[in-house]
């Protein structure tokens, strides 16, 4: 085994691993509890940078007995995961201070990201399972972080129980696959299945069962209906930065696994209808309940949770078509989605820091207090809705739907039409929230804020020890990236995401 090669390829992961240890130690030393977040941010950013500039993604390399594959797709996704995770860690830095023992948040956060990073280059069912568990268990810890709040504990337990069932489902699928192929390696499993099918030894019901189990287990990670029910409760109860992590990093990792498994290992005619049904259900449920949330003036976090279910649905439409072009545009869209969602949640985090509330109603008239952030939030919402206001979201969505539409799948046009109708319905709640913030009079919570601030100033206490609020910085950074990408980089990004798929290694 060429350890040189291994250390070269897994350098970003080693950086993160090192950062895990450093942050654990730092949490013991650092009394101000301020630097662990910054260390984590820096390490993640460094990892993204290293993954981006390393040349090892150019050709397909399998390391560690083919447990991990380094190809264009894994490189792309690792850069994306680590980069976005860096932004999220930054956003969480100050937000997390209000909880008990804030410093330990980041080792857990880093491990979760590490799990997601390994899933990007997963090439073995055992790695897949362990990676998912690393991601999932760490995520449960992240969800339960504000343990004084009952809703956080409740959501953690719910997540734990449903995740355990999903893990069981996945393990059952893996064990069945092992049973018929006597291997856990992706390439061997794929070739063995082809061999079995060529002599028609593989029974059709078994194929269906394995497909259903795999789809179910992965759909759970993607928060796609009908495996989505945990999402609103968990997203609502968790600390907002953990919600952001779940809605972005977990989702990217889920799609990474889905693309690998369905694209290269286990591919049959039953998968596509299943994925399509999931996609349609997700779009309907996500958008419908999203509207109910906004009408009943529920929680913005829940609103974004349902919106992320619907977004999963759009992405699944492209996955269900399972053509190179459509999956390429899936990668493009998930990239833009990750940035947009990070931006939106960073604004929610900032709002929560200020007012301690996340109810839709309290967002009213935010523009009169924080015009810049309101505009950034609105841009993120417009992009999530797919409006060409800063055109990245629109272009990505356009590619997603157009490549799916022309993918040649018989019912792809219907899927796209449903997705389009869903987007139109989604417009309502995105724009309603934007309208609420921009047009309406400031809410009671915001008006109170002013008096609190005045008191704080008169007492001579500074509210935060940062020269610039990290959550706000995250929002500005991500919207900046969004704007730059949409003006200069869409073509480049599209090219990269397309190449990532075309050069996928098997």
């Amino acid at each position, binding site marked *: 085994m060429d350890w040189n090669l291994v250390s070269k390829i897994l350098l970003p992961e080693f950086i993160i691993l090192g950062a895990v240890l450093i942050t654990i130690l730092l949490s013991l030393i650092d009394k101000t509890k301020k630097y662990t977040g910054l260390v984590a941010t820096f390490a993640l950013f460094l990892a993204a940078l290293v993954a981006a500039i390393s040349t090892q993604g150019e050709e397909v390399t399998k390391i560690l007995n083919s447990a991990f594959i380094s190809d264009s797709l894994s490189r792309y996704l690792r850069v994306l995961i680590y980069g976005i995770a860096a932004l999220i860690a930054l956003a969480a830095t100050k937000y997390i201070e209000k909880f008990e023992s804030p410093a330990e948040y980041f080792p857990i956060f880093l491990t979760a990201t590490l799990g997601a990073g390994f899933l990007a280059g997963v090439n073995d069912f*055992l790695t897949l399972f362990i990676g998912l568990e690393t991601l999932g268990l760490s995520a449960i810890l992240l969800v339960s972080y504000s343990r004084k709040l009952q809703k956080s504990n409740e959501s953690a337990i719910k997540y734990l129980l449903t995740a355990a069932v999903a893990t069981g489902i996945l393990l059952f699928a893996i064990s069945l696959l092992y049973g018929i192929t006597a291997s856990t390696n992706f390439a061997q499993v794929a070739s063995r299945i082809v061999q079995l099918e060529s002599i028609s*030894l593989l029974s059709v019901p078994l194929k269906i069962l394995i497909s259903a189990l795999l789809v179910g287990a992965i759909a759970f990670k993607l928060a796609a209906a009908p495996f989505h029910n945990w999402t609103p409760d968990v997203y609502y109860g968790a600390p907002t930065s953990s919600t952001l992590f779940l809605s972005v990093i977990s989702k990217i990792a889920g799609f990474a696994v889905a693309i690998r498994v369905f694209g290269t290992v286990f591919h049959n005619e039953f998968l596509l209808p299943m994925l399509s049904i999931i996609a349609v259900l997700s779009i309907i449920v996500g958008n419908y309940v999203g509207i109910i949330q906004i009408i009943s003036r529920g929680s913005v976090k829940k609103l974004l949770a349902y919106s992320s279910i619907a977004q999963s649905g759009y992405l699944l439409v492209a996955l269900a078509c399972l053509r190179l072009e459509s999956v390429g545009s899936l990668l493009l869209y998930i990239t833009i989605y990750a940035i947009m969602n990070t931006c939106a949640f960073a604004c929610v985090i900032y709002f929560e820091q200020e007012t301690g509330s996340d109810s839709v109603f309290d967002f009213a008239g935010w523009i009169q207090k924080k015009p810049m952030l309101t505009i950034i939030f609105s841009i993120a919402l417009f992009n999530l809705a797919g409006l060409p206001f800063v055109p990245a979201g629109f272009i990505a969505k356009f590619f997603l739907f157009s490549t799916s539409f022309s993918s040649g799948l018989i019912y792809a046009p219907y899927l796209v039409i449903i997705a389009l109708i869903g987007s139109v319905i989604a417009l309502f709640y995105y724009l309603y929230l934007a309208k609420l913030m921009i047009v309406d009079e400031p809410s009671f919570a915001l008006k109170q804020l002013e008096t609190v601030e005045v008191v704080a100033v008169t007492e001579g206490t500074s509210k935060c020890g940062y020269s610039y609020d990290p959550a706000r910085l995250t929002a500005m950074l991500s919207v900046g990236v969004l704007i730059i990408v949409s003006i200069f980089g869409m073509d480049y990004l599209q090219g990269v995401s397309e190449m990532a798929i075309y050069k996928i290694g098997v």
Partner: protein
Amino acid sequence: MQFLATISSLPFYILATISIICALGMILNPNLVRAGFTLIGSFIGIAGLYFLLNANFVAVSQVLIYAVGIVLVIVFAVMLCSLKEEAHNIKESVFSSKARVTFAVLISSLVFAVLSFVIRSQDWQAIAKLTGAERQSSLVQLVDDKYLSQIGFLMLNKYILPFELVSVLLLIVLVGTILLSKKDIK
């Protein structure tokens, strides 16, 4: 021949019955501590099944980790927390308990029916023949006393990445557990 086959598969039926009955007992027993202990019975039954399959190591692990470790933890947890106060706060479902039980039984039996149908539809013998070479070699190693060292070798060689990842996972779960259970510092 038929009789011999039945006789040889008799231990399987006994162990399977034990674990099924114990599992049912665990679900139906209203006393949580007793339910926990019946769970041990179920796990031991499954461990016996592993023994029958010559998977000694897995069987022992099953007994050590699940039957003893995990169940003990569950029992302790149940004994430690009192459910009296929270019990009142549980919202009543819109469905009656009878409806819920019926639904659960229906779903479970459907899952059972589907799984058994699907698994029986596959000709496992043929696959075993096809992939027999590897099976054979692993069976040979089973009787070998180097069996455990084989597992160790595989873990540190072929499956090094998952193995190391598990260590990271354990580390962080440890940190998280301490975090969740430690008393608030004022």
